[in-house]
């Protein structure tokens, strides 16, 4: 990978990290619990993108396993919290 490509990918990582700030604002401010849950879901999607870009910067494919685990746990956690919000219990 050329130096220019490395620099552009690092700029992309910085932009993705800056995009977390509006999501965090929505998590803190969001008027309803569903707003916060949805913001956390979008934040996890951004985190998966950041981890994939970090794998690209380091040039290894091992970091992608972390993104897979994060996606799986985020899915289960979102379903559990959504069920808790609507019915008052998880199981």
């Amino acid at each position, binding site marked *: 990978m*050329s130096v220019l490509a490395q620099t552009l990918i690092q700029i992309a990582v910085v932009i993705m990290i800056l995009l977390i700030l509006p999501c965090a604002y929505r998590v803190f401010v969001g008027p309803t619990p569903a*707003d916060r849950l949805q913001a956390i879901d979008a934040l996890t999607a951004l985190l998966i993108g950041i981890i994939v870009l970090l794998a690209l910067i380091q040039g290894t494919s091992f970091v992608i396993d972390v993104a897979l685990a994060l996606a799986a746990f985020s899915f289960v956690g979102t379903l559990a919290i959504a069920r808790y919000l*609507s019915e008052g219990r998880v199981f």
Partner: protein
Amino acid sequence: MLGEIIALLFIAFGVFFSAVGVLGMMRMPDVYTRLHASGKVTTLGIFGLLVGTAILIPEATLKLFGLGLFILLSTPVASHAIAASAYRSGIPMKRASRDDLAGRLPVPIPEE
């Protein structure tokens, strides 16, 4: 060199659509429209990043394909769960012209 340019274009695509999704999440008036923005647009952005990475690291293509498949399967389910829980817990829609589910929702499972 050409592959690098194409991969960088895909990554720029992904970052752009992630930014648009977050912008929609900030600007939309209520939970349901915010879910529309983040659930669809952010997923498209992540797919751009995945394709760009798969072009630049060819040995990771299988893992990235699995990750993309999982995201493609899990994001609609998660968005649907959030929307259903928001509707069932009585969060109103802003500026809705009609509500097809009003009065038709099945009785929620009672708490023991």
